[in-house]
């Protein structure tokens, strides 16, 4: 037995060395691939950095050119926006006002509903209901925004005009509500993720003390998941600010400094679409407005996203 084994081993070794030589080329290729791939993959990853640099450089360079023609203060604090019609004026406040109004309405719809759905799904719902509702919310999140725009214009707006006869065909309320519906799934799924990561033991402790499900939900789970919930709200806010097609279709194209949600307004995003649909020649001041407004939009959403990440990380309860 013992004398057999080394022989057998030697046989194996021999065959293996005889295989190596015809495979030398292949092995060489393997090692080249092995050395090349990290570099190629790194280049793939750096595309994301280049994208960010591209966005920042594009917006910055054109915005600076724009501000050489139009004073920054006039842009930031002017109360009239009519860059396409003479007399031209370049005050961004009406657009900002429109954007904030839409965002506020959307958040008033989405945050309570999204949060309530999240609490229901995470604390109350039986497994069957949960597994039926979650896909529906996922579908709701996947519906293209242009479809929501159609829905706002053909379903919500007539409803609103029935209730408030004074409302225009294009109004902020309709668009805001639909933007809200669009971001419900986002608030819901992010908050629910935060709630379901609260450990079971905390809930059990409260139940053992005789708490009701509501008390467990509101006094134990929500406070424990608070950072995640706030982060989801901030992200929802930022998403609503950047939403384009719903407001373009349903909120109108009249930049006015109004507080009335039944009026037609214009948001920053809708303005950018309006200009790019027209034939504004490259290099003009009008063309520059796209970049100045885009820059404003980018800075606001960027800061909000950073804030959301900061809140989620900084105030997270560790278990």
């Amino acid at each position, binding site marked *: 037995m013992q004398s057999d084994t080394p022989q057998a081993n030697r046989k194996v070794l021999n065959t293996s060395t005889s295989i190596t030589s015809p495979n030398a080329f292949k092995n060489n290729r393997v090692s080249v691939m092995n050395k090349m791939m990290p570099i190629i*993959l790194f280049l793939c990853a750096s595309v994301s950095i280049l*994208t960010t640099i591209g*966005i920042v450089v*594009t917006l910055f360079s054109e915005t600076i050119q724009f501000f050489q023609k139009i004073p920054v203060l006039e842009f930031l604090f002017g109360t009239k926006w009519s860059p396409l019609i003479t007399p031209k004026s370049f005050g961004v406040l009406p657009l900002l006002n429109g954007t904030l109004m839409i965002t506020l309405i959307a958040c008033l719809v989405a945050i309570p509903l999204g949060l309530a759905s999240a609490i229901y799904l995470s604390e109350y719902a039986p497994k069957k209901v949960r597994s039926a509702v979650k896909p529906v919310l996922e579908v709701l999140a996947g519906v*293209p925004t242009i479809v929501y725009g159609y829905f706002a214009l*053909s379903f919500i707006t007539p409803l609103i005009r029935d209730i408030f006869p004074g409302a225009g065909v294009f109004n902020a309320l309709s668009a805001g509500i639909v933007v809200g519906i669009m971001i419900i799934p986002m608030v819901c799924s992010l908050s629910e993720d935060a709630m379901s990561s609260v450990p079971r033991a905390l809930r059990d402790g409260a139940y053992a003390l005789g708490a009701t499900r509501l008390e467990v939900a509101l006094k134990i789970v929500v406070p424990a998941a608070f950072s995640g919930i706030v982060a989801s709200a901030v992200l929802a806010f930022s998403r609503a600010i950047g939403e384009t*097609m719903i407001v373009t279709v349903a909120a109108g194209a009249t930049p006015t400094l109004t507080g009335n949600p039944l009026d037609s307004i214009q948001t920053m995003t809708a303005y950018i679409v309006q200009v*790019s649909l027209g034939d504004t020649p490259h290099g003009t001041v009008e063309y520059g407005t796209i970049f100045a407004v885009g820059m404003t939009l980018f800075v606001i*959403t960027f800061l909000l996203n950073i804030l959301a990440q900061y809140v989620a990380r900084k105030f997270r309860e560790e278990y």
Partner: protein
Amino acid sequence: MSPIFQDANRQQIANRRRKDVIIHLLFIVATSIGVLALCALIIDILMDGLSRLQPDLFTNFPSRKAAGSGMKSAIVGSIYMLIIMLPVSFILGVGAAIYLEEYAGKNRFTRLIQLNISTLAGVPSIVYGILGLTLFVRLLALERSLLAGAFTMTLLVLPIIIVSAQEAIRAVPKSRRDASFALGATKWQTVSRSVIPSSISGILTGVILAMSRAIGETAPLVMIGAMTYINFLPTSLKDSFTVMPIQIYNWISKPQLEFKELAASGIIVLLALLLIMNFSAILLRNKYQKKY
């Protein structure tokens, strides 16, 4: 404990229970609003659009008259855009994910890329349109072409693909890699023959979801000037084009009722396509999902 005190206690408990039940109902109502909104949306669109859902819609080009107007060029444009996007975004996205999960050291630069990707995911889509307009349309002189549109959309969906591919790769247990290394495989052999095959269903699910995001996206393509009135099919990468959401937007913005119906039927086609894509993603996930 005196009986009066006990009664007060019982009363309090009953109150707390009642509150629990009432608010439970409120939560159910709140949740069902989301579901109802989806139902209302679908019913609204079906009622408006079913009558116009005829062969004309697929075989005809858009025209100024609603009767006989179709979205052939838009459907073909959307599909062409997907075909161009798919390999580019797959390679870049999955490549980046592999780099971050398998190769990148735990240093500041990696953290920067990671932070950057999650920030990019939150950038409004219209800002990508501005980037595409400057970078692809003007700087690289691609004009308002299919290629410029596909590249812009690639940048838009990359963060989605990267994040989902990272999650899929992270779910592959370390023992698989160790087994491969133990057999003498190199790093790249391990990645390409063990890690990627084990995570491919998760990766593909993310890619399909990213593609369905791209097919419904309107704003960036409006920015780079995908036109609304195209009565020819693009024959080369540098031809101008239109896509379904833009055709729908064009029809929505017309005042006549017939065009609204046309828009609704266009939406039905778009939603049907999305449904097929999402459904195949779910099938893929269920079929190849492995539990370790």
